């Protein structure tokens, strides 16, 4: 996902929030990962918004995408200029209404935003894990999130919602913990990466690993593989937009010049944009985390993991109600992939709604202001909340 971080146009915000941490699996304990490797201790960064109601029936779990974090909405301090990444959707009276719901947003493991990942200290060596960090899967991320919810005393989740890699976690939650998840909203996502999606991730990873500074993942005491990571981000950004989005946003317009420079400076606006996005990313993201998280996304395959090769069988494990949403111009996770998962849900008699929202901004559309998206999510949540209250 791109970094948009838009301020709410009406200035409505949940206000001040605080990043919290939960650590578990401390020695001698550890958890066994899907790869059979062991990991511990594990810290997970998370933020909560709103108030948990008495019967704990108003929990919304929001799961972030590749480069996101636990900071879903609000501000860390009064001087803080930047709200959370889904400020436009989450807050008082918004699509996900924090006056009504208790929102939990955990940071995924393998990330570099406060949870245990390759840049964390390996207790065995006293140095950052680097490439000694075990490869984790979407299933591992979700298992760790479950530990956090157990710690918070949450037994039922009204809705799990997330886009892109966050959407994969949504699907994993619904299938892995069917008794906990009342309803789920997978946004702009897929049950498994296409060869195209894996290909782009591989190009991005190779960009990092080809940077001499990467040094087999061992760079925390020296110069970082900034060039590689910036290039990886540039590749990513191309896949998050669309032909139409780029035509509208940049066209063939030149950057601060009236003619070609006849050298290899950034002549076109699109070149300048990608270079800027790449540069900006290296300041806040760890190259190894990028490798691990994209690998987890590539490995994700709901039918392989939960259905013996059958997607319908995988979804037979869940009882959740679903709202599946795709976007017309998303070519990273095109609508046909969402339709395929809807088909498997229908075969299992699951209560599912589906909408392909018309949006020109490509895969990133789920992060941008969209009244239709907000209305859909709000209607779905409110209806499910009313149903749960009745029981």
């Amino acid at each position, binding site marked *: 996902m791109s970094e948009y971080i838009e301020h709410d146009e009406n200035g409505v915000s949940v206000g001040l929030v605080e990043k919290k941490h939960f650590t578990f699996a401390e020695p001698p304990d550890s958890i066994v990962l899907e790869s059979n490797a062991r990991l511990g201790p594990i810290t997970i960064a998370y933020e909560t918004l709103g108030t948990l109601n008495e019967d704990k029936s108003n929990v919304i779990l929001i799961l972030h995408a590749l480069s996101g974090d636990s900071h879903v909405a609000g501000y860390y301090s009064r001087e803080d200029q930047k709200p959370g990444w889904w400020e436009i959707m989450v807050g008082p009276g918004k699509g996900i209404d924090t006056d009504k719901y208790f929102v939990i947003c955990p940071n995924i493991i393998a990330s570099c935003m406060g949870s245990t990942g390759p840049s964390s200290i390996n207790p065995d060596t006293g140095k950052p894990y680097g490439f000694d960090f075990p490869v984790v899967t979407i299933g591992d991320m979700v298992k760790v999130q479950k530990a956090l919810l157990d710690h918070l005393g949450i037994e039922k989740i009204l809705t799990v919602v997330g886009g892109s890699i966050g959407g994969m976690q949504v699907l994993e939650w619904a299938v892995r913990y069917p008794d906990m998840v009342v309803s789920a909203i997978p946004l702009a996502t897929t049950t498994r990466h296409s060869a195209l999606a894996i290909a782009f991730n591989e190009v991005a990873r190779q960009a990092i690993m080809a940077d001499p500074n990467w040094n087999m993942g061992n760079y925390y005491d020296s110069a970082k593989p900034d060039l590689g990571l910036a290039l990886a981000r540039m590749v990513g950004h191309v896949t998050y937009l669309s032909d139409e989005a780029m035509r509208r946003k940049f066209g063939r317009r030149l950057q601060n010049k009236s003619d070609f420079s006849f050298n290899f400076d950034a002549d076109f606006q699109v070149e300048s944009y990608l270079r800027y996005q790449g540069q900006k990313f290296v300041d806040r993201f760890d190259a190894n985390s990028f490798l691990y998280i994209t690998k987890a996304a590539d490995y994700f395959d709901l039918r392989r993991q939960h259905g013996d090769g059958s997607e319908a069988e995988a979804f037979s494990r869940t009882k959740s*109600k679903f*709202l599946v949403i795709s976007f017309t111009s998303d070519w990273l996770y095109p609508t046909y992939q969402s*339709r395929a998962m809807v088909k498997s849900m229908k*075969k299992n008699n699951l*209560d*599912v709604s589906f*909408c*392909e929202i018309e949006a020109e901004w490509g895969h990133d559309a789920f992060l941008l202001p969209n009244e239709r998206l907000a209305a*859909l999510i709000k209607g779905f949540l409110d*209806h499910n909340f009313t149903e749960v209250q009745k029981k």
Partner: protein
Amino acid sequence: MTQLADTTSLELKRFDLQIIASWIKPGSKVLDLGCGEGDLLLYLKQNKRVNGTGIENRESKAALCIAKGLSVLQGDINEEVLDYQEDTFDYIILSQTLQQVYYPEKLLKSLLAIGKKVIVSFPNFSHWSIRMQVLMTGLAPKNEQLPYEWYNTPNIRVITLKDFRKFTRGQGCTVLKEVAINTHHHDTKGHIINFLPDWRATYGIFLIGKGDKK
């Protein structure tokens, strides 16, 4: 003589939908094909505790339904009906859509597979005014129910009540109920026609079952 369907809090505007709603047993599982903005589904949910799903091709309308808390799939009805298991639904509703379906035979077969009963309503092309228009003007008919020109009408199937009865016999299914209605005031009001329905009805509504063949 005006016969009203259930009198309840939320009212259905269209007269044919009022009749259809009166046929649905409370608590049943319903699939509404071409559900539009979900008026019928919402009515059935609130008044008959129906477990309903809608299919609607237009993004804006499907989104409106979901925002109302209805379970609706955006998609083409011919495609979407293929994924369900046998007898998933107690009723499948195809209201004022049949005349726009490219392969009605195939669709009806699919519907009778996934549903126990199918309710079909369609505009009656053998209404006297339509017959007169063709006869007197020699032009393809146009009226309130069928307001299009021949070249831009979505109503590609010209069906009469008689045609449909014949069609169901050919398909080996049973007509369990049949009502012919005459509507006025933008289809919001109407009455049931018992005398010369083939001539006088603007719409036909049929409840169809699977037939004797098991």
